[in-house]
């Protein structure tokens, strides 16, 4: 409990650090909202016009004043107004987040649903042909970029079968469950496949470690079945590194998968942040990075809590 409280107290401090970093970083990049909107035509503006536009985009104040204003807003849950969308930043983020969350969850299901059994399977058949096959699959999966897999899937489906998942707009599950799954299954497979490879590799090596432990030998000598030894005794202890990896990966996925969203034209958080950076929509970049950082911290906290459930010997907060 104390540990949980201590972690929760650090949240605002980390967020403050993130807010300073993102605020400064986006402003250090050359170009601003005016050149992003007008391109080279910005050169045609008169000084008065430039001034008027700078005031419109809030660029006429010093960085300190801009940051102070923004931070005050954030404290009252007002992340500012997106100049691209003409809407409050929080509304834009919350509109994009369901897709990203669902895609991240589906990718995790794909990765763990395929990767974990494969890793366990390979570990129990160490150095046999089937183990080698799984390792080769894992190596290929890990070294193939997701955009290659995505483009190949799109090409094969459209050129070979004349079908494609719906692109361009998100179909919420609550409105059309079938359409929703049809739209997200291929991006989730694309995204999940390389992660599957990581899960396979890490669960295989963790299982190999555990299978050579004394307690496994003891369980076997006491007559436990092979299946029981693997799934009941060995696997829970091999899950710790898998949970760590999944937590980190899930945290990343909640920030949006830019390439997959780009290829499958899914309006998720990743593409939104990319567009916001290109269009120098400062409020949107700042707000969404804060949102992603918060998600990441929450997921990490959950991962820490999961350790305790998996291995009762672990006590959080340094006491045992």
């Amino acid at each position: 409990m104390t540990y949980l409280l201590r972690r929760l107290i650090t949240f605002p401090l980390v967020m403050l650090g993130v807010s300073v970093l993102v605020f400064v970083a986006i402003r250090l990049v050359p170009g601003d909202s005016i050149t992003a909107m007008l391109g080279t035509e910005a050169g045609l503006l008169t000084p008065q016009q430039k001034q008027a536009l700078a005031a419109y985009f809030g660029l006429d104040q010093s960085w300190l004043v801009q940051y102070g204003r923004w931070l005050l807003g954030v404290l009252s849950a007002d992340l500012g107004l997106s100049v691209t969308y003409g809407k409050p930043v929080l509304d834009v983020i919350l509109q994009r987040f369901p897709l990203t969350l669902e895609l991240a969850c589906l990718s995790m299901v794909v990765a763990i649903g395929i990767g974990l059994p494969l890793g366990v399977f390979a570990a129990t058949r160490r150095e046999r042909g089937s183990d080698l096959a799984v390792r080769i699959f894992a190596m290929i999966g890990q070294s193939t970029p997701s955009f290659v897999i995505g483009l190949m899937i799109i090409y094969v489906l459209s050129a070979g079968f004349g079908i494609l998942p719906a692109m361009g707009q998100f179909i919420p599950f609550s409105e059309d469950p079938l359409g929703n799954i049809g739209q997200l299954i291929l991006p989730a497979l694309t995204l999940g496949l390389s992660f599957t490879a990581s899960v396979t590799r890490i669960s295989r090596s963790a299982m190999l470690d555990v299978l050579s432990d004394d307690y496994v030998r003891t369980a076997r000598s006491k007559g436990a079945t092979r299946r029981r030894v693997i799934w009941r005794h060995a696997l829970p202890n091999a899950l710790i590194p898998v949970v760590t990896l999944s937590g980190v990966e899930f945290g990343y996925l909640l920030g949006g998968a830019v390439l997959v969203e780009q290829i499958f034209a899914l309006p998720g958080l990743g593409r939104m942040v990319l567009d916001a950076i290109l269009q120098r929509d400062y409020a949107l970049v700042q707000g969404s990075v804060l949102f992603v950082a918060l998600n990441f911290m929450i997921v990490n906290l959950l991962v820490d809590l999961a350790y305790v459930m998996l291995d009762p010997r672990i006590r959080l907060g340094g006491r045992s």
Partner: protein
Amino acid sequence: MKPGMTRRLLACAAVVAGLVGASVAPAAAATLKMAWAQDATGLDPHKQTAFSSIRLLELVYEPLVRLNGDLKVVPALATEWTFAPDARTLTFKLDPKAKFHNGQPVTAADVKASFTRILDQATGAVARANYASIASIDTPDDHTVVFNLSQPDVPLLTAMGSVNAAILPASEIAAGKIGTAAVGSGPFKLESWEPNAREVLKANADWAGGKVGVDGIDIKVLPDENAILAALRAKQVDFALLNDPLVATLVPKVAGLTLNRKPVLSYHVLQLNPSRKPMTELAVRQAISCAIDRKDVLDTALLGEGEITGPLTMPQYRSDPKTLFCYSRDLAKARKLMADAGYANGFSATVIAATGEPPTAAAEAQVIQSQLKEIGIKLDIKLMELNVYVDTWLKGDFDMAVALNGGRADPYSMYNRYWTKAGNLQKVANYIDDTLDDLMQKGRVETDPAKRKDIFSAFDKHLAEVSPWIWLYTGYAYTAQQQNVQGFVPTPDGSLFGLSAVSLK
């Protein structure tokens, strides 16, 4: 069959049905399903300059006049217009049938309010420079507008054919709603806009221009053009705008798809900086012009998908490139010019290019690098993110720049920013030439089309000869469509206004 297996099969069938259903479920029969890779960046027609924004807004808003497929001025909100012989007064008669989407009629007061907004520096309208000669606006009656000009300005009429000079309701301007709501008078009403994802347009049944051929347009933003091609193949999309020639040239290979190619006004150019040594020397600039094989750059970087051009790219002013200075590669002449200027051993310089804008920029820079190496010029290519490039370009902080610059229907509007002494982009061009300035001023006041053509022909020739920049070629505007889409007429300015006449078979 085991119950578990049945459930699994059913689940698979459901997913496949979802995929197929998602791909073939038709929208309303007469709604055009369209895709493009880049979305509009805003709804204020006076402020937007991005290509995609203009393409969307010209379906919703209308200027007084419009440019047709041959870039000739044709009626839009105005049915007729007259220039006074001294080109200092321009009078328009408005279409009495014209109405805004909110049902209000379009009147002279709206025209006056719109131009007052454009000319107001506080608006930040980039196109203001094109209308700066307007001294005052009279509205003798509801359907007549008289623009009084501070100096003769013949190109003003063509400049008014842009959606940057769209007429907005005076009431919306007064309410400060421009940019948040889109109330125009054009063939389509903007029903919804989700930036970088989707926009829905509905046909305007009261459009004064006639009956719109479709019920509406559903535009999806598919940021990867390969995905657009896939969507065309899967018949998810009826009509698409393409930018990448590598993707566009694949369209004709797909059965049932048609590719429309139209030479555009924008031009690919190697900008030299004549304020930096040794580009200060005429002979060096000319040597670069002679050393560049434009056809080779075009074939290598753009797959030959374009046409070699001089400075003027509009069909009615475009000259035969063969008549321009050193448009056939002449290495011997280039080497002699370099030697004459005292650079027989060449020199080193940096060329800037934007990543992905245009998609061919890096390839162009590389071909030019290898060609100029043959006369001893060592080019260092500096690739930059677009915003960084724009910032550097606007400061004129480069030796050379690979650029794709926008064109205009009138030579004066296109080039006065660079090649007149008072040009707003003089610090980008970094080159002042009395002859060019003189010819531009003559072109601005001349009302006789034949004489204007002669003036700008001389301008074209002289500009190519003094070579502050090396003009390369113009590309094509690409649109792809299914066979059921009929009646689309592409224009050299890339306008999609032709969609108002499109019907679905």
